[in-house]
């Protein structure tokens, strides 16, 4: 039953390792932004710690867009996407696995390296825990919503521009509540409300988006 899901996950990860440099791009991008910001706005700790939540989150959001173009396109072009409809499992499960592997490759490294980024931008130490939780709740939403946009723009040639236009409006609430949570935590206020709303968005995206992605993919291969 879970054989095909496991097969797809291990193939995705194996391909990610084999494309090494390309898979590290989102993380490299995040750190380029974090390193360049103090050079641009000045190295003052007060200013940096005020903009740190927003900067880290905007960098995470933009870096998650980088890998979206290649989320379904290689499979679409080499014909293996069609094979998804010939397997034993509903495509829903395969979509969930593909989005999960995308999150493992782009989202998880960002969460793991977030403490370093926070230190570089003088984020208030009390807010670090909230930053980590907001990233854990938020980066899967980025993968899910991005996956929907990638599936919708699959048969358009070079859909990158269209893809970003589709993603941004949908992702604004995530950005607002995630940076809000980190900012209020830095001021010593409980970020529970913000994180609760973020968690609700994650549950909503997790249940509905894979269905939408599966039908969008079907539209594109027919």
């Amino acid at each position, binding site marked *: 039953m879970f*054989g*095909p899901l496991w097969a797809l996950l291990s*193939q995705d990860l194996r391909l990610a390792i*084999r494309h090494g440099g390309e898979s590290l791009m989102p993380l490299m991008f995040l750190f380029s932004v974090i390193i360049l910001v103090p050079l641009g706005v000045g190295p003052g700790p007060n200013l940096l710690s005020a903009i740190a939540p927003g900067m880290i989150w905007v960098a995470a959001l933009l870096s998650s867009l980088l890998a979206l173009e290649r989320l379904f396109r290689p499979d679409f072009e080499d014909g*293996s996407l069609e094979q998804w409809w010939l397997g*034993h499992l509903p495509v829903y499960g395969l979509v969930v696995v593909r989005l999960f592997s995308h999150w493992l490759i782009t989202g998880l490294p960002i969460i793991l390296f977030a403490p370093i980024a926070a230190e570089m931008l003088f984020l208030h130490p009390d807010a670090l825990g909230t930053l980590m939780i907001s990233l854990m709740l938020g980066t899967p939403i980025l993968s899910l919503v991005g996956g929907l946009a990638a599936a919708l723009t699959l048969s358009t040639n070079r859909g990158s521009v269209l893809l970003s236009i589709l993603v941004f409006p949908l992702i604004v609430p995530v950005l607002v509540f995630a940076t809000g949570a980190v900012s209020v935590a830095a001021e010593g206020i409980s970020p529970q409300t913000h994180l609760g709303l973020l968690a609700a968005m994650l549950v909503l995206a997790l249940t509905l988006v894979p269905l939408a992605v599966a039908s969008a993919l079907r539209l594109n291969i027919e």
Partner: protein
Amino acid sequence: MFDDISLRLDAGRLLLILGPNGSGKTTLLRCLAGVIRPIKGELTCAERRAFLGHRTGLKAALSCRENLGFIQSFHGRSRVRPDQALARVGLAGFGLRLASTLSAGQTRRLGLASLLVSERRIWLLDEPYASLDDEGGALVDTLIVDHLEGGGTVALSTHQRMPDIGAEPIRLHLCANRPENH
């Protein structure tokens, strides 16, 4: 593309789809595979199908053995191991070669090996003879004959070479598709 097709394909039979370019051979096969839903009408099929098209669904960055291993666990395990399948299609010793280093004909052969490792009774082959040499064409014929004898069913489209098998296939001729005037 086409309409009013009604046919029944039993186990052990070969369906030959013939017709000029653009007549809908690939579309019909993808429809039989269940990838495209017919606009009208229905398709009744109890078995899972294997579809091998122009694009073979193989990953260039993976080795031949890794590709076949994936297909085996993705489409259900057959008794044929990847190395046996490679030997069967004339790619013995290519297990560790990356699929990107294969020639066009060898890639087609690897595609045929992927049919062998996935346990499917129904094969849908779109232009299986494309870019294969005479020996490769004969290999396709042998694989089809063996599959039919084992109780399998094959539907294939071709416009070059006719399959050379003992039994008489069911032939389906599609007409050239005339663009409609709008």
